């Protein structure tokens, strides 16, 4: 029967096939053609092509194995049992928020600088994670930012992005 996992696998195979075929045809554009290496026809585009072909073959294998699993259990398993996954417990909203905040951090850090960005990052993140103890929230953010800044800037001599304000 068509479980969630099998659907994922089929999507994965389709994705892999598309990506490898696309990349295979991208090879002439992305790989500069040079003379052969020595006397043999080993060019920079040979290995990439081999890798793409292997990936396609593997994706096809995956499709066939998923389909054969599906066909084998089509009549035997009942639809009811396999759907017991507690979807409601998965907090995709929190996850997406955190991912967004993470990417936002990357884009802000060069402009605003390490100290302010990290401070905001930590505070916002803790808030999003339902930490309502504001004193702990703010103090942890400040302490962590200060500590990491000290360790990096003065102990390890790694300059952090200055942005608009830094020590």
């Amino acid at each position, binding site marked *: 029967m068509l479980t969630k996992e099998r659907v994922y696998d089929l999507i*994965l195979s389709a994705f892999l096939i598309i990506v490898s075929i696309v990349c295979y045809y991208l090879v002439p554009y*992305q790989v500069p053609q040079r003379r052969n290496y020595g006397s043999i026809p080993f060019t920079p585009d040979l290995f990439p092509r081999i890798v793409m072909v292997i*990936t396609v073959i593997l994706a096809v294998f*995956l499709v066939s194995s998923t389909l054969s699993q599906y066909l084998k259990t089509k009549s035997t398993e009942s639809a009811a049992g396999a759907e017991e996954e507690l979807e409601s417990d998965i907090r995709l909203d929190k996850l997406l928020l955190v991912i967004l905040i*993470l990417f936002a951090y990357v884009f802000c850090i060069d402009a605003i600088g390490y100290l302010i960005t990290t401070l905001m990052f930590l505070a916002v993140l803790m808030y999003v*994670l339902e*930490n309502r103890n504001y004193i702990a929230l703010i103090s942890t953010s400040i302490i*962590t930012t200060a500590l990491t800044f000290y360790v990096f800037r003065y102990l390890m001599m790694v300059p952090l992005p200055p942005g608009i304000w830094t020590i």
Partner: protein
Amino acid sequence: MILSMDMLMEVLQSIMHIEVLLAILTGLIIGLIVGAIPGLTSVMAVSLLLPFSFYLDPLIGIPFLIGVYKGGITGGSIPAILISTPGTGAAAATVLDGYPLAKQGKAGKAIKMGIVSSIIGDTISSLVTFLLFAFGFTRIALLFGSPDMFALLFLCFSLIAILSEGSKIKGFISGALGMMLALVGQDPVMASRRFIFGNVNLTSGFEVVPLMIGIFAVAEVFVQLEKFNETSKQAKVDTSKLDSSLSFREVKRCSRAIGQSSFIGMCIGAIPGLGQIVSAFLSYAAAKRTSKHPEMFGKGSLEGVAAAEAGNNAVNGTTLLPLLTFGIPGDTVTAVLLGAFIAQGSSPGVRLLEENGVVVFGILLAMVITNVFMYFIAMYGTRYFAKVATVSIKVLVPIVLILCILGCYAVNNNVFDILMMCIFGVFGYFLKKLSIPAAPLLITFLLSKRLELSLAQSLQLSGGSFLIFFQKPISLVLMLLSFLILGWSIYDSIKKKGGKEGFKLPTE
């Protein structure tokens, strides 16, 4: 013999410095804490701390990382036993008998047995590795020409994909993905730029550290976030039950299981591509088969705990054999260690021991010392580490993410690396959702360029003929082995009509 008496003296002197010992101690404690917190894995901790080790002396930085690693494995057994949640993948086999023991009120006994067997397995393995290197094991690399190197790498690629957890096909797909990622950058033969899409930051390809931290640390955080409702309820840990003591007699009774598992662990460690999880389960299965009380396994057999823990720790010593001889990492953590070695200028290979012998032997000895420290810390600090297992995700996530970001930035002072980390984090998250193991990806990513280079060199030597791989004994044997393994796995997948076996394990 590579190791002379003078050298040995020098090694001992360089180790017995307070900084080295402090580094090991700190690493151990960090590792134990990280290992004890389910949701933080030792791979995560080691990859996070790797960039920090670049700034330290090799004899301080690398033992530090090793301390974290070992602490992590041992720490992982604590929540495995107490709340049946392995702190790291390697502790998965420990749950089988550890948790029943905890339910019988013998949690302390189980934890202490785990620690003792871990230490024994690890020490034996480290000493054997030390001796092998002392007697010139790395000279084997001299026998390897380009075709032999290619054959060895080809064998690794075949092995890695198969013996990792889950479905074989997905293991191979993971390997293929790693190879695809490795295509980006300059090709190893002529340094022409491939697949950089005009982005100058990608000229040397994807940087390993952001890739590792993204796929292993950040992705793990994302998976934990998914379960936000579950994990924000804190698990109750009853520390009163931790007092049950372990008698010497009980250890002696398990000595056969420990010895057997140590041997299995050492063999598995020496083969690249396998890892602690494989070793733990194989040792457990072997101990069950040869035990006088096999019916007790699964219901609270101390032997089971001993076998699992000795098995997964005995991998640590011998895993350095392929790493330092050929530069081939056996699993994710050794891949991280490889990065540490290279960054410190100790490139693996025959010359390693001749040029940097003191450092290498020092590190091996440090591993033995780590075990000594571990004994005292773990035995007497168990209750504190158990408390740690209940730290809330709300506090951990922000701090871990910041450390990840800093770790990535520290490598090249490039914000682009942080962006890469985020992207690989999302990528790694999808890998986990699709049940694609990540370890094969990392290893093929690291070895792909070398594979291509040795292929090119071999073909250059032979004038284009592929027969060269079957002419010399070493490459012939290795190639035949690879084909055997590949053939067997294809046959096996077809027979099972799915290939959804192997070890069904929690995330590493």
